[in-house]
């Protein structure tokens, strides 16, 4: 029993980190251009295909080299998409931009079948096998996901706090006009954002390949649930996105045991809609609310004492 619980928690945390990375990846774009990238699902898929289909199978490279090359290629692709789509559409009606990114996703989806074929690909000897301890069997891939996600989040934190482009991007996310006036090049900032975001998508495609296998719909669910995670955490904030992802991953895994399996996927969306209705700022809103309550209570207590 204890073993099963541990298993659930580890896989919950791992999926939570996957959702968190998805949330981070589109929050970056949201902050830089005020647009949601509705094609991110297919970018993650592209990462998986480039990694398994091109680098490992066609080029016969080692796993590590393949992963590095995939991430670099995705970064280049991100720069390209920034120039073709995101920069021209940044001042358009939101709806147009939403539909344009959805169409980009469909284009990638169709292109993937043509290039890599309709059969699902599976990386061989990559993050396979299990760990056993304390009576629990945990797939190695889950453990690696947690490690990789923590490293990426730490690197991002460093990038935003310590480097000049990172600080610039933080400024752009707070106020685009003011940043432009202060001499930050908003277009360059968008390009850097897209590169970063697409690289994270690439990583997601690589680390989830053993779990979902590489196919067209491999990222559909994690992409949608990543959106949920963002809303649950609090839209537009990176730490909130990570918190939202972890909460969602664990709640969902536990719900999978308690509720009939049918409802497992619906839990995320229901949770998201509940948060939107009752705490539109997500967990951040809940935290603020609790803090306010505590402060009020402190003040009241103080008055009583006096």
């Amino acid at each position: 029993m204890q073993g099963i619980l541990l298993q659930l928690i580890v896989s919950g945390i791992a999926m939570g980190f996957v959702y968190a990375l998805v949330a981070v990846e589109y929050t970056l774009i949201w902050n830089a251009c005020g647009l949601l990238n509705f094609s991110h699902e297919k970018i993650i898929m592209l990462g998986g295909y480039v990694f398994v289909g091109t680098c490992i199978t066609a080029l016969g490279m080692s796993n590590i080299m393949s992963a590095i090359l995939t991430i670099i290629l995705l970064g280049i692709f991100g720069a390209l998409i920034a120039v073709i789509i995101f920069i021209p559409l940044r001042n358009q009606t939101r709806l147009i931009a939403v539909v344009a990114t959805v169409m980009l996703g469909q284009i990638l989806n169709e292109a993937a079948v043509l290039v890599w074929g309709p059969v699902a690909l599976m990386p061989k000897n990559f993050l396979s096998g299990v760990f056993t301890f304390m009576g629990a069997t945990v797939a190695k891939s889950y453990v690696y996901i947690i490690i990789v996600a923590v490293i990426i989040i730490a690197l991002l934190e460093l990038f935003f706090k310590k480097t000049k482009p990172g600080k610039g991007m933080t400024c752009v996310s707070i106020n685009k006009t003011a940043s432009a006036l202060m001499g930050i090049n908003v277009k360059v900032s968008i390009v850097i954002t897209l590169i970063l975001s697409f690289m994270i998508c690439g990583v997601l495609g690589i680390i989830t390949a053993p779990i979902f296998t590489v196919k067209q719909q491999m990222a559909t669910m994690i992409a949608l649930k990543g959106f949920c995670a963002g809303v649950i955490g609090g839209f537009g904030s990176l730490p909130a996105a990570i918190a939202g992802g972890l909460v969602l991953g664990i709640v969902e895994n536990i719900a999978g045991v308690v509720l009939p399996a049918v409802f497992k996927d619906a839990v995320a969306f229901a949770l998201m809609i509940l948060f939107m209705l009752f705490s539109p700022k997500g967990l951040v809103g809940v935290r603020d609310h609790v803090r306010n309550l505590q402060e009020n209570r402190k003040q009241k207590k103080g008055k009583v004492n006096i």
Partner: protein
Amino acid sequence: MKTAREWKKYFPVFLMLLLAVIPAFVTGNYYRTVCCQAMLYAIVALGLNFIVGLSGLMTLGTAAIYGLGSYVSALFCVKLGWNPWAALIPVLISGWLIGKGLGYPSLRVQGVYLSLATIGFNEIVRNLLTNLEWTGSGTGIRNIPVYEIGGFAFDTQIRSYYLIYAVLLLFIVIAWKIVNSRWGRAFKAVKDNPDALEVCGINIANVKITAFTLSAIFAVVAGAMYAHFNRYITPATYTTDLSISFVVMLIIGGLGNFWGCIYGAYIVAFLPQLLRPIGLTYKLIYAVIIMLLVVFFPNGIFHDIRRYLGLHRVLKKGGEEG
């Protein structure tokens, strides 16, 4: 000589006549089916126009509402043995309820959040339809009865065509009346400036919920028609992609452009079929074309072509002279 504006007055009549004679030129059941599909899409698009086109709210859950119409009608007919016409009553009630139900969140949830919430709604509905036993789970519902009037069954493509045509006509008239009424103005006013609308003594909540309810009723009726026309429904039809397609119809037709809803629906329904002979790559080409249309003609194809050609001004002038 008649001026452009005078000719424009007859445009709806021309359009409806054109649609009435299309089956004479389109032979083969396959393309007639696509024609029916296009008209059903047009009904949904006319309804969606109230929310997306006029009121400017981004909802991406229409496919779920369309699916709801299909499933309610199909379940009442197949499981309870109702007449398809009688089943329209629960269909309308469900549309009214779901419209109100989606309208309320739209008061609290705005912009991109609303898109996400409605995508969430779409996914929940599709998920439930796929997994619940009594909706036929993944395989859907088969052998749905067709509409019938006094022993005359609408069971062939050509008969269905004229049934759907009649319904489309009815909905065009209703939508036209609404768009050109105080409600049409109120919907546009919500998009332009909600604060000012409140000051005019109008409850915005009421206006938004009305837009959602209208849109949902159009969508469920179209959904019900689809179920009895296709006679077989599966959850795989009602994806978020379909929801996006409905919005694409509006964009191609021009957001807020009444007749644009109809030709937008035809373009989205026919384009993939026309491209199909190309073979393997047709879906890719379809997506590329739609993306280019959306990026380069964001105000609707005809509007932007006229703008690019400088014709728009000429037309306006002609109208003023007449």
